[in-house]
C-alpha cells in the first residue's frame, strides 16, 4: 500500500528562508537558522519529502540557491524537489546536480509549455511537478501565475484539464487565500481537481497545526499535504504531526 506524504516546503529569497502569507513574504532566517530549528541535514530527520523553491522576486541568483540547496540536502536522504523560475534546461540540470530529484514548475506551465516538454523528455515526466496557484474570485477558483501576481483568467478546472495534457508527474496545488493563514486546507478547492485524478496530488495552503495535516491526509483525493509554515513546526513539530497522523489511521512510512 502506497503511503501518503507529509511534505515541508521551504521558500527561499535572496539568502533567507521566508514565511508567506497570501503570497506576501516575510524574512525568517538563513540556512543556519534553518539548521538550528529543523536540522533537515541530520540523517533521520522525519520527513517524507522536502520542496525548496527560490521565490526571489528580484535579482534571482540561481547559482547561490543551488549552493544553499547542496548544503541543505547534504545528509538529507529523503526526496528533494526544487524549483522557482526555471527557464532553461541548464538551470534545471544545475538544480538536479545540487541535490534535487524532481523539479517544480509554475509559470513555465503558462508561458513556456515547450520547456515543460523538454524537461520531461530530458529527465522523465515523473521529474516534473506542476505547481498551480489558485484563488477564489467571485465564487469561482481562478489560476494565477508569477508568484500569484497575475490572473491568468483560467478557471481551476480548465487549467487542470490543460495540465492533464502536459507531460508532468504530479500536481502541487496551493490556495493563495489560505496560504500562511493557519486556518486549515481549502477542501472546496478539491472539488475542482477531477481532470487530474490520475496524477498524484499535493495540497498546500492553510496548514497551521497537526490536525490540519491529519485532515488533509485523510481526504481520499489527496496524496500528500505540504506546509511552508516555518514557525509552527519548529523542532520536532513535523515528527509529532507524523505520529498524530499515524495514530489517527493515516498510512505514513515508518523510518
Amino acid at each position, binding site marked *: 500500500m502506497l503511503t501518503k506524504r507529509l511534505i515541508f516546503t521551504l521558500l527561499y529569497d535572496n539568502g533567507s528562508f521566508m514565511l508567506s502569507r497570501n503570497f506576501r513574504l516575510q524574512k525568517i532566517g538563513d540556512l543556519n537558522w534553518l539548521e538550528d530549528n529543523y536540522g533537515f541535514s541530520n540523517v533521520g530527520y522525519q520527513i*517524507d519529502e522536502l520542496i525548496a523553491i527560490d521565490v526571489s522576486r528580484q535579482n534571482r541568483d540561481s547559482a547561490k540557491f543551488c549552493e544553499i540547496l547542496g548544503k541543505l540536502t547534504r545528509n538529507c536522504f529523503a526526496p528533494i524537489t526544487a524549483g522557482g523560475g526555471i527557464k532553461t534546461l541548464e538551470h534545471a540540470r544545475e538544480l538536479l546536480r545540487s541535490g534535487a530529484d524532481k523539479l517544480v514548475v509554475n509559470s513555465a506551465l503558462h508561458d513556456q509549455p515547450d520547456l515543460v516538454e523538454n524537461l520531461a523528455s530530458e529527465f522523465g515526466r515523473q521529474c516534473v511537478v506542476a505547481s498551480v496557484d489558485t484563488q477564489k474570485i467571485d465564487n469561482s477558483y481562478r489560476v494565477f501565475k508569477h508568484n500569484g501576481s497575475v490572473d491568468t483568467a483560467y478557471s481551476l478546472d480548465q487549467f487542470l484539464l490543460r495540465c492533464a495534457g502536459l507531460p508532468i508527474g504530479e500536481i502541487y496545488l496551493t490556495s493563495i487565500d489560505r496560504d500562511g493563514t493557519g486556518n486549515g486546507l481549502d477542501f472546496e478547492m478539491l472539488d475542482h481537481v477531477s481532470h487530474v485524478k490520475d496524477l498524484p496530488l499535493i495540497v498546500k495552503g492553510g496548514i497551521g497545526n497537526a490536525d490540519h495535516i491529519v485532515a488533509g491526509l485523510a481526504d481520499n483525493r489527496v*496524496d500528500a499535504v505540504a506546509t511552508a509554515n516555518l514557525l509552527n513546526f519548529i523542532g520536532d513539530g513535523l515528527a509529532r504531526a507524523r505520529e498524530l497522523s499515524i495514530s489517527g489511521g493515516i498510512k505514513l*512510512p515508518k523510518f
Partner: protein
Amino acid sequence: MANNEVLIVDYGMGNLWSVASAIKFLGKTPVVTSDLSVISTSETLILPGVGSFRRAMDTIRKQSIDKAIFDSLENPNTKLLGICLGMQLLGASSTEDGPTAGLGLVQNEVVRLSKSETSPIKIPHVGFNKVQMPNDSKLFEQIPIDASFYFVHSYAMQILNDISIYTTTTYGHQFVAAIESGQVFGTQFHPEKSQKNGLKVLENFLR
C-alpha cells in the same frame, strides 16, 4: 581502483549527487565517472538513472559503457547495483518509447505500470511503499519487515520464475522492487532517498 572506492557510472542521466553523498555517508569514496578503463576495472559499481529507458540505452551503447560494465563483471569479485532506471537497464528489454533491448544481465522485461480491477492507481507511482522481502535476501538483511522505500516510476520490471531473489511491491500489479542475481543487484526504489532503511540497503550491498 582502491578498495574503499565505489564507482558511480555517469552516462549523463540520473541523480548522481544523491547517490554519491549516500556513499560518502557510509564511509566509502564515490568515484563518478564515464571513463571506460576505470569502469571496466572497478569491483563495486552503481548504475543510477532517471528518465527514459531508450535514451539511456542509446547513450550507454554509443559510449560503449555496456562493454565496460560487461568487462568489469568478468572479475567474479565485482558487484553491480542498478538503481531505479538503472535496475531496469539490467533487464532484457523495455516497452518505454518503443521496444528497446537492455543490458540483458537479467532476463526480466520492463513494462508500464497498469491498474488492476481491484486496484485503481495513479501513475507515476510516487512515494514510500512497503516491500515483500524474502528471507534469503542480502540487500534486506536486518531491515524491519514494515520498512518503506521511496519509489518514483511509471515502468516496472516483471517478476520471472527463475533463480533470482526477488523483493516485490504491489501497485496495481506485483513487480520487482529489488533483484539479486549473483553479481548483479538492483532496486526499483531509491535507497539513497529512503532514509535510514535505504542507507541500510546500500550498506548491505557494499558489504
